[in-house]
């Protein structure tokens, strides 16, 4: 059954991908990209990768669509006539695809319990999570502790992306505060129905974000997903009430502080492990009981991830929106 669903979803994904390449209207392309992300998320879910599915849905279908739309507001909806050689690109892509297909000939059977990925490190993770960390969600244990250094790196990837956008867009003239004239219609404030429905939704989205943040140890979730969800709630607020009002709630300086603070919190937990006599990112030394220490460490670093992701996503959103206001 999984295979049938998988083939169905992947076929839809293929059709969407072709449509994205073929359309000349960038607005349509952005919408289709959102659909493609949702299809990928569904596929991940089908493969029992609920954590990745949640991230893909929140980031791919949610936030990146908003950012793409922000970019389109600055540029144009129509694609310019291509300047590059299409045949060459097509040949390169086909060649790469053929190699990937060639690589699948000897791959382990789908879902096989004898696959090397199932027999080497995975049993150790499944086995030792209970002993060392004692939380039900092994994915969180791997991401937060066993391979916590990678996750720290990912937080800094997000942070670097945020710095990049701020660096490129901050140099724009008049990037500072310029309040909208009173009485003007900002956002969707004149449209009653989206406003009422949106306002009703926002508290629940925020609550769900917090749930995803703190429930990551038990079920799918964690800082990345929660950060994206909380950011989405505030972006929704900005769309409804105008960007200025959203900035009054959380000013730019605070967002920058969140982005940097989350990364510092994560790194700080790692350094604390060092100072208490362990290695970098060794949470066992954070409490008298190593298992308790691991749990505390994961809770703290997930909070750091959430802060940075929320801060960076909102900073990027506001940077684009501010640029759009001048245009």
């Amino acid at each position, binding site marked *: 059954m999984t295979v049938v669903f998988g083939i169905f979803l992947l076929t839809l994904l293929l059709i969407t991908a072709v449509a994205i390449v073929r359309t000349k209207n960038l607005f349509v392309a952005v919408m289709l990209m959102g659909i493609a992300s949702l299809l990928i998320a569904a596929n991940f879910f089908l493969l029992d990768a609920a954590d990745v599915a949640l991230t893909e849905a929140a980031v791919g279908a949610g936030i990146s669509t908003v950012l793409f739309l922000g970019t389109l507001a600055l540029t144009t909806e129509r694609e310019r006539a291509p300047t590059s050689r299409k045949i060459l690109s097509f040949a390169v892509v086909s060649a790469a695809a053929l190699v990937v297909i060639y690589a699948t000939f000897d791959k382990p059977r789908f879902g096989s319990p004898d696959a090397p990925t199932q027999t080497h490190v995975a049993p150790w993770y499944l086995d030792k999570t209970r002993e060392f960390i004692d939380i039900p969600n092994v994915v969180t244990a791997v991401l937060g502790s066993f391979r916590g250094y*990678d996750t720290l790196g990912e937080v800094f990837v997000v942070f670097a992306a945020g710095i990049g956008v701020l660096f490129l867009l901050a140099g724009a003239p008049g990037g500072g505060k310029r309040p909208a004239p009173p009485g003007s219609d900002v956002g969707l404030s004149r449209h009653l129905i989206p406003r009422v429905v949106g306002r009703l939704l926002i508290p629940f989205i925020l609550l769900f974000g917090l749930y995803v943040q703190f429930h990551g140890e038990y079920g799918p979730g964690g800082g990345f997903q929660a950060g994206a969800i909380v950011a989405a709630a505030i972006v929704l607020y900005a769309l409804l009430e105008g960007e200025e009002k959203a900035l009054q709630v959380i000013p730019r300086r605070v967002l920058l502080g969140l982005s940097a603070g989350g990364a510092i919190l994560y790194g700080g937990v790692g350094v604390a*492990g060092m100072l208490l006599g362990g290695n*970098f990112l060794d949470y066992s030394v954070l409490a008298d009981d190593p298992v308790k220490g691991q749990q505390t460490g994961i809770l703290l670093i997930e909070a750091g991830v959430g802060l940075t992701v929320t801060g960076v996503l909102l900073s990027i959103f506001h940077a684009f929106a501010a640029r759009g206001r001048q245009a």
Partner: protein
Amino acid sequence: MNALTAHLPALQVIVPMLMAPFVVLLRARNLPWVAATATSLLAFSIAVRLTMIVTDGKPVSYRMGSWAPPYGIELQVDALSALVLLVVTGASSLALIGGRESLAKVISADREPYFFAAWLLALAGMAGIVVSADAFNIFVFMEISSLASYVLVAGGPDRRALPATFKYLIMGTIGATFYLIGVGLIYMMTGTLNLADMELRVHEVADQKPILAAAGFITVGLALKAAIFPLHVWLPNAYTYAPHVVTAFLAACATKVALYVLLRFDFFVFQQNLIGHEFQFAAYLMPLAILGILIGSAVAMFERNIKRMLAFSSVAQIGYMMLGASFVTATGLTAATLHMFNHALAKGGLFLAIAAIAIVTAGCRLSDIAGLARRMPWTFAALVVAGLSLIGVPGTAGFVSKWYLIDAALELETGGAALVALILVSSLMAVVYVWRIVEAACFGEPAERRAASVPPALAIVLWAAAIANLGFGIAPGLPLSLSATAADILLGHVQ
């Protein structure tokens, strides 16, 4: 003190990385620069300390989060990594110390915190790649260093920096994605990400199609990142339009880090396991190296923009490193790794000289520097020293690595003489393009200049680089012993 020493491999990465978010929050003018420079110098001293520890040939290992590999992430520093770490942190420190005025001209005060934070992230990313012993972890840090380098290049003085960055971004992302696909395929077949563990486990499945495809993806992806001919198209514009000091930093180390991963992956994981890999490695990479050397040098000979000229020269120099590696012999690998170090000295010195010249001139074309040598004799003297090292004149660092390369070529059973001829011809081509700079500067008709002088800090680091080119040419002991050990380590994995 001893406890601190044990943490050095981790500190090498996390000191610059964790300073970045603090730098973003600094608002006072020049303070971000001060913080970044101090951090970079600290990173350099860590690299020096690590080098002292590993010179006897014994690698240092570190377990992140105290988890044993392959379950947790392992860091490892050996002679090869120490050499590259010295280059990365040294280039960053020299460029930062000398670059304050040069950068202040192109980066406005409100963008300074972001810029220097990105600089530290680029430094941390490259250091993270070098010390990592985990295939996926390398990818993560590749992303950090790439994103940060795009920001640095985009800081360039005119808008042409933006399309150059975009091209760099697209190419870099394709390279990283190819690498990730390759790592994913290997993980599918071995279930591990730790390089040492991978080396053992890949053996059983070495003849299977996913591993072959993975070797291809990883080689091509990293070749794209390392700008190996013909995958170098992103490099000339990125180097030309980046701020001068950024070019000095990136030209000295960015491509070398990718080359380092390529060598490590290839020699540790593939060489001994894939049948006939040794031959294929040579058969594919040697022609590319030769073409890169010839075409890169030829384009440089006719280029009028000095920065672009030197960028194409970099394509040729990467060719030398690949040529040495493609011999798969101890001498060849010594030459390749030594040339990483020496080329960083020469090219870093040249780009620092350009940063100094650009304080006075309007642009970086040959016509802009006409007759300038009379006004800036010291700057041009340093430029000539670095240029001689690039050519490979005896007494400079560049000579030592070319000597080893010729030595390695002569050890070959066939074609050695032809390769020696190639190296000599391409060195003559380097004479031509370096001479064109000198000729314009010494004999051109001087035009009106801005009344500015080279900041003392820049003059000092420029001369430090020039003297290093001479010093490591006369007494190449340290880099030579490191690269000889590195070659042994790499070949130790080949049976």
